[in-house]
């Protein structure tokens, strides 16, 4: 699960990780009120930041051509002007795809005087099965780019989960980032706080980019998180109802939200052949083989190891709700899940939602002959296949033929997110 920047910063505050003072706003009035207070308290610049679950906001462009999802405002006039061009508009960044995301909230923050931009993150090192904190002097850049071009500028500390992150590890990182004097204890406090966010909140990634050294009144240096991105381990959310309540359904694809209600694992893609499969590995492999035979998968859908008839029906409705779908491939390897149960689910679903598209069903495994018999006796116009390759070939050619008959032109390429 992902959360917004303003929510990440709320969590940072709880763990004593310094962040700029800011207010999340959902309307012009709220933004102007917040900005007015900041200006009244002596702030020269108020920053208005679009809140969407995607990176690249600063360089993003709004649907009507207005440039920049992050705006610096020097007056209330500026604030009003920018907010009117940002709020409830679609922001397109390199991570959103061409359809962009609607900006439903803005974060108004006191502008900081930036002396230096750094990078800090903590995530799981899968090879070591331990958390690793990563830092770099190259803040504000994508870390992948830094890793590719100047890997020597990335430093790391692997954390022993038996004892947690130790202050000396934070001092090591601070020293390698070139920090001196008062900045070192600040870094220790901040890094240990970031570690606690990661560990205690069951995060899978906490990323601060940029982490800044700002100039405060009197010329004092202050280390703080200018941005914040937190991704949570979905498996750990049961322990954190407060974090779970930060989920923003508006940021997720509607069909994916619907699928999650039925405990179905669905990810929308940009092709036109829907697939319904049991098991994540087999579902990925099914997408791959559709592509291999010249088709394009419309989704990833894992109905799980023990799907019920109702889940199969729900799964069918969800894949058919994607208007770009021109054909369906069902691939089930019955182990725990019996093929006859799947067959009945398919029939129930088709009877309920109707079927106007080519459907290829490939069943294998437990009770396969009974499953095939149920499908054959149903009188439904479906094609059956014995192997995975036969199934993929059949659905790809059925979709192509249908497109030919319907005289449809090629679908425009769409982006997924």
């Amino acid at each position, binding site marked *: 699960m992902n959360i917004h920047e303003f929510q990440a910063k709320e969590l940072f505050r709880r763990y004593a990780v310094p962040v700029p003072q800011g207010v999340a706003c959902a309307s012009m009035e709220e933004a102007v009120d917040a900005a007015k207070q900041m200006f009244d308290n002596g702030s020269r610049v108020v920053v208005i930041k679009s809140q969407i679950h995607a990176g690249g906001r600063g360089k993003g462009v709004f649907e009507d051509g207005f440039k920049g999802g992050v705006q610096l405002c020097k007056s209330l006039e500026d604030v009003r002007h920018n907010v009117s061009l940002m709020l409830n508009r679609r922001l397109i960044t390199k991570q959103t795809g061409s359809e962009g995301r609607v900006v439903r909230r803005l974060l108004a923050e006191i502008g900081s005087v930036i002396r230096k931009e750094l990078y800090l993150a903590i995530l*799981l090192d*899968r*090879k070591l*099965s*331990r*958390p690793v904190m990563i830092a770099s002097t190259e803040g504000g850049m994508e*870390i*992948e780019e830094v*890793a590719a071009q100047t890997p020597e500028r990335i430093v790391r500390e692997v954390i*022993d*989960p*038996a004892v947690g992150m130790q202050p000396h590890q934070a001092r090591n990182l601070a020293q390698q980032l070139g920090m001196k004097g008062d900045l070192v204890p600040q870094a220790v406090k901040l890094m240990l706080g970031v570690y606690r966010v990661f*560990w205690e909140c*069951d995060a*899978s990634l906490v990323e601060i980019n940029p982490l800044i050294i700002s100039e405060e009144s009197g010329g004092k240096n202050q280390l703080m998180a200018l941005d914040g991105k937190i991704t949570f*381990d*979905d*498996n*750990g959310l*049961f*322990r954190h109802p407060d974090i779970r309540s930060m989920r923003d359904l508006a940021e997720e694809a509607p069909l994916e939200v619907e699928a999650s209600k039925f405990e179905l*694992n669905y*990810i929308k*893609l940009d092709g036109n052949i829907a697939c319904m*499969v*049991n*098991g*994540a*590995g*087999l*579902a*990925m*492999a*099914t*997408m*791959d*083989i*559709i*592509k*291999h035979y010249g088709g394009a*998968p419309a989704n*990833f859908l*894992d109905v799980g*190891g023990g799907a019920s008839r109702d889940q199969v029906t729900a799964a069918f409705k969800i894949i058919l709700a994607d208007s770009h779908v021109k054909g369906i491939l069902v691939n089930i*390897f*019955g*182990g*725990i899940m019996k093929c006859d149960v799947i067959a009945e689910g398919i029939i129930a679903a088709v009877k309920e939602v109707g079927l106007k598209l080519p459907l290829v069903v490939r069943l*294998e*495994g*437990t009770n396969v002959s009974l499953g095939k018999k149920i499908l054959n006796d149903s009188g439904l116009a479906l094609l059956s296949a014995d*192997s*995975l*390759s036969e199934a*993929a070939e059949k659905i790809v050619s059925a979709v192509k033929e249908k497109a030919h008959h319907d005289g449809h032109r090629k679908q425009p390429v769409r982006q*997924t997110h």
Partner: protein
Amino acid sequence: MSILVTAETRVLVQGITGKAGAFHARQCLDYGTRIVAGVTPGRGGELFEGKVPVFDTVAEAVRQTGACASVIFVPAPFAADAILEGVNAGLELVVCITEGIPANDMIRVKRAMEGRKTRLIGPNCPGIITPGDGKDSKGGCKIGIMPGYIHKPGPVGVVSRSGTLTYEAVWQLTSLGIGQSTCIGIGGDPVNGTSHLDAIRMFAEDPQTSAIMMIGEIGGTAEEDAAEWIKQHCRKPVAAFIAGATAPPGRRMGHAGAIISGGKGTAAEKIAALRVAGIAVAPTPSDMGATLAKLL
């Protein structure tokens, strides 16, 4: 021979009175697995299916029955504790089927298992099976949730991160008349007990195994690590398939560990590394069996 488990392996089931635990314990018993005990706290003294004694703790079950392996079906919030209970009772093998265990719990578990003798398989996996030579491969040792009848005893060691995709591969092999020494599902989580490499090392040393099938997927570098070792040390032929060539970056494809992050862990990268190591990579999931058959 085989790796890790044989028809003689004495197995206990943690969570034997739960729905999934009871169902699969029955299936394993029917296959011929020597299920000698069940564990459910608070249910000690009962008999499962009228024959398998249930204990309150794993330690007690081990003392009373001599079990040396366990299979875990307890719900995710309690699974880390269940694994460590097996470790602390001195089991040789713990197979954790449970899906949805928080990554941080597994990080702790792995740390606590350092220097201990127990091998963990999983979590979030179908388990391990050494096929027997009875009808539908019965009479072997099935510790997990895979359908037993798709297997056949023989020379191929199978290791996979996935469940049903493994069944697909095994079924293709069996349909071609090629049997399996042992099949291990290592699970789809980012932190697991046994890696591809661990399993392949064991297969490389197992006299019954003459070829290896590795089924991987996007995310992490477990397949690359195995490929590197295979290139240097493995004299047995290896076939492979990597799922997820069409998966979009940044999305978790069902398995918690199946994610391309920061441009890393793509199928293309993995396939390239496997090819460099001389591994035969199946072009589609339909060719997994045939790709291996060519190596025999």
